[in-house]
Structures are given as structure tokens and as C-alpha cells.
């Protein structure tokens, strides 16, 4: 009780000081509002539309196409994967299909491996892409529980400095009392339409995060890309069969025991 009282006392004292300051400040800020705030608010007040600079590579038609692509993709995801009326097993199959048709896996894989892509053998590259896509599908499908009731709204398109790439910005509305999430999709124009190569959630890029993580694993494993593939494969096994981790360690201990016997 004493605590609550003291908290209220502190608050009210702070409030009185601040409200008197506030009056002055709001009046000053309204005085200078128009000219100065334009200079000072370098980035914060501008909407994405203002960055839609003229691009020689893309025209308005293509901006629209890219936006439609994301709209279509997110509608499929919301009605298919996030819907509660669909059975769990079917959700993963649906996501698998969506992932393989709308993500440029090769480009994503190249980016994620970075300089190690060049050093990898053809076999390693193929194996990596396979394990990487399977694991990504598994992890993302697991995340989709509890996303029911969300809706996605695209808000604009900006060209990337990279050839053939665009950013589509969207807002994910989570419903009552929750802040919307800003998601940017990096898409690339291919012959057969647009493909996603990165998803940037509140400034955190999926591709960059994978790249940093995998780079660290490759360095620490000491076995190059093959070392990474092995670790990804064991993670995948762990997801597919949650008990496999326990059995694997059991096997190990059994092996140690038998080898001791042998000696």
C-alpha cells in the first residue's frame, strides 16, 4: 500500500512538472512545426510513396504486378495456411507448395552461403539447397500456429538498387490491441513472374539472419559447407522425429559401451 502511494506521489509530481513543460513545448513545436520539422524529420515522417523514385528499369505497370504478386501470395497464405478450419497436415503441404512456387530458392541459397557458395562443389550446393528448403519449410510451418485472424495489406513498392529487384511493403494486422507488423518482401523479376528472395520483418531480414548464422556454423565446424549440411540435416531429423535426438545420444552411449567391451 505504501508502495502504491509512493508510486502515485512520484507520478503526480512528475506529471505536474511535465504538463507545465508540455504546454510550452507544444506551443513552441507548433510555432516551428512546418518549416523546421521538415528538415529535422529526415526519415520518420515520410511515407514510403515518397521514395518511389523514377526507375528506368521498372514502370508503374511492373510495380503493380509485384504488388499483386504479394497480395495474391498473402491471400493464399491467410486463407490456406493461417485458417483454423484446415487440418494441420494439410497446412504443411500447402505451405510446401506455396514456398516452392513463389520463392527463388537458388538466389536465396546463393545469398545465404555468400563467399562459401563459390567454394562449394556442385553436389554440396544441391544438397544444401535441398536441406535448407526442407528445414525452412518445417520451421516456418511450425510458426504458423496461432496466426489465425491476421490480415495482410500491401502499402507500396520501391525499386531496389539491385538489378531486377523490388521491395513490396506490407502491413500485417494482428487484430484488436496488437500493433501492426511491417513486413517488406524483396522480390526479383524472373521470366516466369516474380519470386520472393527475402522477407524483412520490422527491419530484420530473414536472408541476412540465415547468412550470419550459417557463416558462423561453417567457420566453427571446420568442415566447410559439408559441416553446415550435416548440422542442418540433424536439425531437420530432430524436427521430423522429436525423439530422434534422444535415441541418437542413446546409440552413441551404446557404441561407447560396446567399444569398451571390445577393448
Amino acid at each position: 500500500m505504501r508502495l502504491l502511494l509512493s508510486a502515485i506521489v512520484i507520478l503526480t509530481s512528475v506529471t505536474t512538472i511535465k504538463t507545465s513543460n508540455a504546454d510550452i513545448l507544444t506551443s513552441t513545436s507548433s510555432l516551428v512545426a512546418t518549416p523546421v520539422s521538415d528538415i529535422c524529420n529526415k526519415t520518420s515522417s515520410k511515407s514510403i510513396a515518397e521514395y518511389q523514385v523514377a526507375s528506368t528499369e521498372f514502370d508503374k505497370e511492373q510495380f503493380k504486378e509485384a504488388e499483386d504478386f504479394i497480395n495474391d501470395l498473402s491471400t493464399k497464405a491467410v486463407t490456406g495456411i493461417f485458417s483454423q478450419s484446415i487440418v494441420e497436415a494439410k497446412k504443411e503441404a500447402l505451405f510446401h507448395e506455396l514456398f516452392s512456387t513463389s520463392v527463388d530458392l537458388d538466389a536465396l541459397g546463393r545469398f545465404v552461403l555468400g563467399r562459401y557458395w563459390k567454394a562449394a562443389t556442385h553436389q554440396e550446393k544441391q544438397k544444401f539447397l535441398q536441406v535448407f528448403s526442407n528445414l525452412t519449410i518445417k520451421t516456418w510451418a511450425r510458426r504458423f500456429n496461432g496466426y489465425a485472424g491476421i490480415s495482410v495489406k500491401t502499402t507500396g513498392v520501391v525499386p531496389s538498387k539491385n538489378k531486377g529487384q523490388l521491395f513490396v511493403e506490407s502491413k500485417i494486422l494482428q487484430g484488436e490491441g496488437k500493433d501492426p507488423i511491417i513486413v517488406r518482401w524483396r522480390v526479383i523479376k524472373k521470366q516466369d513472374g516474380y519470386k520472393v528472395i527475402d522477407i524483412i520483418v520490422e527491419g530484420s531480414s530473414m536472408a541476412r539472419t540465415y547468412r550470419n548464422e550459417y557463416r558462423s556454423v561453417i567457420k566453427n565446424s571446420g568442415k566447410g559447407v559439408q559441416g553446415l549440411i550435416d548440422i542442418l540435416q540433424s536439425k531437420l531429423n530432430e524436427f521430423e522425429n522429436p525423439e530422434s535426438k534422444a535415441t541418437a545420444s542413446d546409440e552413441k552411449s551404446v557404441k561407447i559401451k560396446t567399444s569398451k567391451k571390445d577393448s
Partner: protein
Amino acid sequence: MRENKIKTHAMCYILIIALSMSGCATRPNDNNIEALAEYKQINDPLEPTNRIIFALNNTLDNLILEPVAKGYRVITPSPVRKGVDNFLKNLSTPIIFANDLLQGELKRSGTTISRFVINTTIGILGVFDPASEFDLPYHHEDFGQTLAVWGIGEGPYLMLPFLGPSNPRDLTGKIADIFIDPMNYSITHNDNNDDLKCAGTVRSILGAVNAREKMLDTLDDLKKSSIDYYATIRTLYRQSRNNEIDNGLSTLINGNMNDFDFYDNENDFDFPNDETTMTEE
């Protein structure tokens, strides 16, 4: 009793020795351009030490903070937690306001002060957030971000004991924010007032539990799905800080749009800019 003391001393020495021995990550040879670029970009020369501290933090988190945050989620309904979150956000107004001004963001400082007035009065001491309904959304600022806006580089990645991921710039910012906060000021200037001290402690604990509760699902998911949790947290910390510094526009208007280089060109040794490391700019 004496034996115990010796034990703790020994433990401390072992810890110090382990930390100093783990030392620094090896810098690659100057001839290896790509490896060197990567080393500079990761910008984590203290990685071995940082990893040890990260493991200790994780153990503490598993033992104390995470269970407490889970318990807090169980015993409180969602509107109560929202109220606590609003209340704590409202209390941090002086820090946000001061940093808005220091960054020259007049419009945003106006938003901050208007939010404070509306939420403290109509929102009953900040428990409710009616200001958001009036198109005055919450934003966060701290002195670490201010230093970044002033052009100060982040410096090498640091894992702080108990406090988690940071860097010299953000650590300096954190300390400065303690001095900016009027609540801390009034505590230190009324050192006989136990109620104030107590309120300060409660605020810190509540802040930690509230922040951890909000991260429960994300961190749980990352822990389960990542194959190098330390590296994942390191890159996500930097990316989200850069996003905060640029007030949400980092991937669009800053230099890091060039980072999607697909290594098509065999002669291209240019390492794409992965994270906007302020030191390199």
C-alpha cells in the same frame, strides 16, 4: 565457513582465468581479402569471451527470468499485462522525449509529449493508451540511438553479463539514459527515502519481467530452430537496432539495398554490405 570463502574465491579466479584465456578471435591473414572483409563485418573480436558470457546469461535466464516471465503470463490476463506495459512506457517518457530533442526530431518529440499528457490524464496514469487512438503512436528512443544519429559508430559487439547484447555505443547510451531519467535522479537525491528506492526497484524488476514476457515466443522459437543461437542473436540485435536508429526505414533508403549480390561474377570479390556497420561508413 572459511572453506566456503576459499571456494568462492577459487571460483572467481577460475572464471577470470577462463575469460582472459579465451581472449580474442583470430584475425585472418591480410592476403585473404574475403575472409578479412567477413571478419570486419562480423565485428566481434571478443567472440570467445562473448560466447562464455552468453552461455552464463542463458543459464541464468533458464533458471530465473524465463520461468518468472512464464509465471507472469499464466497469472495475469492479457489486458493487465497490456496495462503494465503501457504504464512502464509512459514512465520512460522523459528518456524518449530528451532523445527525440537531442536527435532534432521535433515532430516526434511533440508526439511523445502529447502522448504523455493524454495517457497520464485520460489514460489514468498511463495504464491505458488512448493516445494511440488519436493517431499518436508510441515510439522508442534512447541515447544509444542518439549517438548513432550523431554519427558515432557502434564499435565491436559486446555481450554484457546479465544485460545481454550490446556494443560500446549502446552501453554508453544505457548509462547516459540512467542519468537522464528523473526517477533515478530523485532516488539518488533523496537517499533516505526508502519508498522511492523501493519504487525504483519494483520498476526495474517489472520492466525486466514485462520485456521477457513479450519475447517468450520469439526467443523460444529461435532457440529451437537456430543452429547457432549466439550468431542469430548477434545479427538480430544489430538489425533491430539499425531499424530503431533509422526509425523503421533502414532497408529502404540506406546503403544496404546493395547487399543482394548473387556471386554470379567469378571475378567479383566485393563482399556485399551485410549489416550497416557504422564504423565502416
